[in-house]
């Protein structure tokens, strides 16, 4: 029945488009939101594909359409060769989906009972469920807590149980929405290892906010912004879009309040600057990150701007661009 293994692409999206009706109180309409705008991409069988983008970019909406939870407004897509609108049952059979978050589990049931129930919903026989439950619990390192009620689980434990749940029927294709959200760094590393081990036997489509995660895991990525794909390729190719550029980090050992935005705007409009952003570090310092073609020229201009506002610089660094910088360059603004 499953033909995904013979197909070159496990997932194909063609001009997928989704508009939400914005609802006010009661039945009042507040217009529409275009969440996903004619997105097209293909995920080769046996690979991991990443959708990256800031909050509200349309990643979850795309994933919900592909997993048959949401109908596209227009456009089409196939998963494992089956149409997501017409053949939703065939699509669902070969799909494991992690929508993530705190919800989506029976909080009064134990981790194992959750897995057993979902295995039953997928029509597996009891011995298969038992064996698979042990396998996936071990994979996500929850075997010691399997008998406990889920309501007492930490966010990261729930997140891992979500992955286990999506794997219980061992589907050939997995769709994971921010699989490592809420995990501590060690747990995130473990989970990434588990996901990396799924290929080439499985195909994985995931979304993430973490550029380094995409860099580590994904064969190909697509950067989504305002519902559109703004860049696509291997992580190396996407980084290559800014390979000629340099990244300048200027640190100021004080919080800047109102002037920070003004300074950022002035820096962003300097000649040769492809993008500028600022952040307040945990130490209370302010850091400007600038992506530019001519670092010496830009640095002069940026330092002059800072001096004009009476701001003293504590450190300056010039470095090779990262995937974050690619995003900055492509969209003109910071990722976070």
């Amino acid at each position, binding site marked *: *029945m*499953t033909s995904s293994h013979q197909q070159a692409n496990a997932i194909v999206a063609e001009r997928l488009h989704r508009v*939400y*009706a914005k609802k006010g109180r009661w039945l009042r309409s507040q217009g529409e939101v275009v969440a996903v705008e004619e997105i097209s991409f293909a995920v080769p069988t046996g690979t991991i594909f990443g959708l990256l983008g800031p909050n509200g970019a349309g990643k979850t*909406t795309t994933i*919900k359409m592909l*997993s*048959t*939870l*949401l*109908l596209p407004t227009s456009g089409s897509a196939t998963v494992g060769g089956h149409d997501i609108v017409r053949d939703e*049952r065939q699509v*669902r*059979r*070969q*799909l494991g*989906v992690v*929508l993530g*978050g*705190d*919800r*989506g*589990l*029976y*909080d*009064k*049931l134990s981790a194992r*009972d959750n897995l*057993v*129930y*979902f295995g*039953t*919903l*997928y*029509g*597996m*026989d009891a*011995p*298969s469920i038992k*064996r*698979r439950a042990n396998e996936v619990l071990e994979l996500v390192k929850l075997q010691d807590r399997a008998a406990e009620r889920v309501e007492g689980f930490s966010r990261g434990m729930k997140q891992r149980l979500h992955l286990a*749940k999506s794997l219980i*029927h*061992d*589907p*050939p294709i997995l769709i994971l929405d921010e699989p490592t959200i809420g995990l501590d760094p060690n747990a995130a590393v473990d989970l990434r290892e588990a996901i990396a081990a799924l290929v080439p036997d499985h195909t994985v489509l995931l979304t993430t906010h973490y550029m380094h995660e995409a860099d580590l895991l994904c064969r190909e990525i697509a950067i989504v912004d305002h519902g559109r794909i703004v860049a696509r390729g291997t992580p190396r190719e996407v980084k290559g879009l800014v390979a000629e550029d340099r990244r300048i980090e200027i640190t100021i050992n004080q919080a800047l309040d109102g002037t920070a935005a003004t300074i950022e705007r002035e820096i962003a409009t300097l000649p040769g600057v492809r993008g500028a952003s600022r952040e307040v570090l945990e130490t209370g310092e302010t850091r400007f990150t600038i992506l530019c073609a001519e670092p010496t020229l830009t640095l002069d201009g940026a330092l002059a701007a800072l001096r004009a506002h009476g701001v003293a610089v504590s450190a300056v660094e010039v470095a090779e661009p990262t995937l974050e910088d690619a995003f900055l360059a492509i969209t003109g603004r910071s990722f976070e």
Partner: protein
Amino acid sequence: MSAHPGVRYLSPAGHWWATMTATLRSQLFIDTTYLISIIRQPLGGAIFFLLMWITYQASGQSVVAGTSAAGFLLIGQVGVEAWGSTIWASGYAIQHERSLGTIGALFLSPASRVAVILGYGVSGFLWSLPSLLVLLILGLIAGARFAVADPLAVLAALVAVYGGSLAVGFAFASAFILSRRGNLIANALQTPIHLLAGFLVPRSSLPEVFQAISNVIPAAHSIDALRASTLNGASLGDIWPSLAATLATSLGFVVIGAWGLRRVEFAARRSGSLELY
């Protein structure tokens, strides 16, 4: 067919049955998390019975529709329990799934939705059994007396009472899935049926419009059958018209439910509201 060499799948019928029983088991387990939820239902039923019985006493009516008020109410209360447990079980369970965010996972699985809803319904039925026992004792103390000539007729009428309630609950399941506040709908539906189906007062004493409406409610017919077979010694031969009416109206609700479920799934996918709480 299996993606995993070691994963074996059940036959479609086996899958259906396993889904129903697993839902039932989970539901019973979840509902017994708190001790209060175990005694709540029998207690609620007992208080309601006493309230109605005292009301009849206060109005000076000790005989209703040819039998004792206690007997009339006791059987009516079986209808109250059956209706409450099925409508409440499916309404509340679906609302619960929504609040947990598991409803999306349920829809993503290839499991039969009917089997899941039936699992809720059967758990509701099991929950009502302790209440029935408490009510039986209370009813006898209050003076209810049985006249049973045909135990089979009683059994058939009981099955009809629960089956009919389940059918109506099934028809409303779609509304619970589509609405974000299924429990409120369940709440609103609970009391009108008590009146319309003749659980608390004889249907013949209702205004004519209500009497006409009550004919489409399976429980109205099945409670007639249950009263006749338990209190007036009616046989299967006597009550079959009521049983047939229960079956016919129940089938109507099952058809509405099956149609509704399919529509609802599509509507939820279109609006994108399935995951919202």
